[in-house]
C-alpha cells in the first residue's frame, strides 16, 4: 500500500492569496469579518461576512472563477485525477440569469464548473464533482487518499471553492443561523455563524511518485472518517455520536489512538448547536482535553472549502509549531473550558485532527501529520 502525501497546496481567503499570509493574520488574532457591500443586506438582520476584496459581482465572471484564477499551482501533472469540491459553485450565474430573465441557469451547474476547472489545469485524467455540504472538501481529501492507497490513482488534484452570494446569505438568514455581531466559535454568547468565501487546491500523490519526482512532502493524510447523524436536515445530533464515529474511523484508518493527536482544528462554526455537539464528540473520543481552535471567527464559514482550507492551515501550524487563537472569543463556553486556545501558542507535535460537519447531518474527520 502506497501512502498518500500532500505535495502542493494553496488558498485564497479574505486575508488574500497564500497560506502564509492567512496563517500570519490568524496568529495575530485578526478577523476578516466585515460589513457586506456586495448586495443589499438591510433586511437580513445580519450585515457581516468574510469576503475577498476586489471581486466583481454579476459581471463577466463568477465569484469562484475569479478566486480560482488567482491561484497559481506550481506543477500539476496532467494525468492527475480531479476532484472538485463545492456546495453551490457558480450559483451567482444562476442569480444573474434569473434576475435578467435570460433562463441560462444551466451554466451554473456544478458539471459546467468541473469542465472549466479541468481545462484551466490542462488535465487529462478522471474528473468528478464531490459534494457533501460543508464536508465536501474534507470528504474529497479522504477519497483522494483512499484512491492513492488502493493504487487506483497516484496523483489526485482537489480543487475547492464557495462564495458569499445573495443566494447563500439569504438562505442562512432564513435559518436564523447568522450571528449579527460576527461568528464567535465556542464563546458562551455565540449566536451563529458568519459566512466566508475562499478557494484552494491540494495535490496528493503516492509517496513513491512524490519521491521519484523530487517533490517536497508537506504532510501525510494518515486517516479519514465520514459519517452521518441520520437526525436532522440542518441541525447536528446533540449527542455528538455521529462526529465521534467519524473521528474513530479516521483513527482506525490511521492506526493511531487519541493520545497521538497534538491539536484539533475544529469545525467551530459559532452556532450554538454545532459547537456544543463538537465538544460532546471530542469528550467521547479523548480521555483528556486537547488544544482546540476554530478559524471561523477569523475567516467565516467557507462552506465546502472549509475542510481543505483547514487542512492546508493545519499543515502550516504543524510546520511552524504554532497554533492560532480562536478569534473573537470573550468568554469561553463552559462546555469548552480547558480545550479552547484563545492566544497564539507554541505547540510542537507531529499529528493533528481536523473535523467538519454540515447540513444533512454529515460529519468528517482527517488525521494529518507532517
Amino acid at each position, binding site marked *: 500500500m502506497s501512502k498518500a502525501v500532500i505535495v502542493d497546496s494553496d488558498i485564497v481567503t479574505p486575508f488574500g492569496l497564500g497560506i502564509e499570509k492567512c496563517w500570519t493574520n490568524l496568529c495575530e488574532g485578526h478577523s476578516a469579518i466585515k460589513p457586506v457591500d456586495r448586495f443589499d443586506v438591510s433586511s437580513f438582520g445580519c450585515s457581516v461576512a468574510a469576503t475577498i476584496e476586489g471581486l466583481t459581482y454579476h459581471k463577466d465572471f463568477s465569484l469562484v472563477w475569479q478566486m480560482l484564477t488567482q491561484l497559481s499551482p506550481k506543477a500539476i501533472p496532467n494525468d492527475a485525477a480531479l476532484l472538485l469540491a463545492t456546495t453551490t459553485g457558480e450559483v451567482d450565474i444562476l442569480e444573474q440569469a434569473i434576475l435578467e430573465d435570460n433562463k441560462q441557469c444551466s451554466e451554473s451547474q456544478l458539471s459546467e464548473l468541473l469542465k472549466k476547472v479541468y481545462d484551466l489545469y490542462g488535465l487529462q485524467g478522471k474528473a*468528478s*464533482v*464531490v*459534494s457533501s455540504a460543508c464536508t465536501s472538501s474534507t470528504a474529497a481529501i479522504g477519497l483522494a487518499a*483512499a484512491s492513492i492507497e488502493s493504487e487506483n490513482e497516484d496523483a489526485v488534484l482537489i480543487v475547492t471553492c464557495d462564495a458569499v452570494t445573495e443566494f447563500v446569505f439569504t438562505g442562512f*438568514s432564513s435559518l436564523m443561523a447568522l450571528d449579527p455581531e460576527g461568528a464567535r466559535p465556542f464563546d458562551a454568547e455565540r449566536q451563529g455563524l458568519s459566512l466566508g468565501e475562499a478557494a484552494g487546491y491540494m495535490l496528493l500523490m503516492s509517496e513513491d511518485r512524490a519521491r521519484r519526482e523530487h517533490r517536497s512532502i508537506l504532510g501525510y493524510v494518515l486517516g479519514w472518517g465520514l*459519517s452521518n447523524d441520520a437526525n436532522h*436536515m440542518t441541525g447536528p445530533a446533540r449527542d455528538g455520536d455521529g462526529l465521534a464515529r467519524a473521528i474513530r474511523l479516521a483513527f482506525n484508518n490511521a492506526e493511531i489512538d487519541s493520545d497521538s493527536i497534538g491539536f484539533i482544528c475544529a469545525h467551530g462554526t459559532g452556532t450554538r448547536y454545532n459547537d456544543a455537539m463538537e465538544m460532546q464528540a471530542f469528550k467521547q473520543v479523548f480521555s483528556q482535553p486537547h488544544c482546540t481552535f476554530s478559524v471561523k471567527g477569523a475567516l467565516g464559514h467557507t462552506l465546502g472549502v472549509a475542510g481543505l482550507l483547514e487542512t492546508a492551515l493545519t499543515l502550516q501550524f504543524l510546520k511552524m509549531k504554532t497554533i492560532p487563537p480562536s478569534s473573537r472569543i470573550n468568554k469561553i463556553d463552559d462546555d469548552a473550558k480547558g480545550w479552547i486556545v484563545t492566544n497564539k501558542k507554541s505547540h510542537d507535535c507531529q499529528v493533528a485532527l481536523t473535523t467538519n460537519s454540515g447540513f444533512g447531518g*454529515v460529519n468528517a474527520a482527517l488525521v494529518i501529520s507532517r
Partner: protein
Amino acid sequence: MIDILGLGWLNDQCYGQGRNRSQVDYANRVSLERLGFEDNLFRETIKNFGRFEALTQKLFIATTLALRDAGLTNSEQLHEIGLLAINKTGCIASNQRFFQDYLDGGRKLSRANLFIYTLPSSPIAEAAIYFGFRGPLLYIDAMDESMNSEIQTVENLLQTAQAKFVLINLIDEFYQAALIVRIGKAATEHFNMSFLPENIAECAKKIKEASERT
C-alpha cells in the same frame, strides 16, 4: 469488485425490484404519497413526504424497494449503510425554485424549507434521516459516463470500512434506481437483468462492468 445485493427502481409507469423480479404498474395512481401508503412500501408515515420534491419522493420509493430486495431491514444493518447520489443536473431545479421564490417575495426573506434542498446531497440526506443510514453521504458527478469514478468511490468507502454497504442512487430525468452493494467477489453473478426495463438494466450493467474494471 462489488456485489449487488438488491435493486429497487422506478420510472414514470412502473416500479420494481431486481432479485425479486417484481414489477408494478402505477401509472394510474393518484400520487406517490398514496402509492407508498396503499402498497405498504414504508414501515411508518414519512413526515412531510407530500412536501418533498418529486425527485426525493421517487428516491424514497426506489430506496425502500432496494432495501427489501437486499433483505436489509433491521436498524443495525441500516446504520451501516453509506449513500452515494449520482445525478447529472445536481439540484439546479431546487436552486431556481428557491431564488425565484425569494425574488417573488420582494427580495426580503427567503424560505428555509426551500433553501435546505439547494444542495445536491439533500435528497439522500432526507433518506438517511428516515431510514437511519449512518454511513458517509456523498453526491458524485463524474465527467465521463463509464461509472468508473463512482464505483471507485464506492469501493474506497467499503474498503476503508466507512460503511459495510453502500446505497447507490442513480437519479435521472426518466427513472430512478437504487442499488445496495457491498464488497464481493463476483459482481451481480446471481442477477438476471433481462427482465428489467432497458434503461435500468443499462445502469446495472454499467456498474457491473465498472466494478470488473476497478
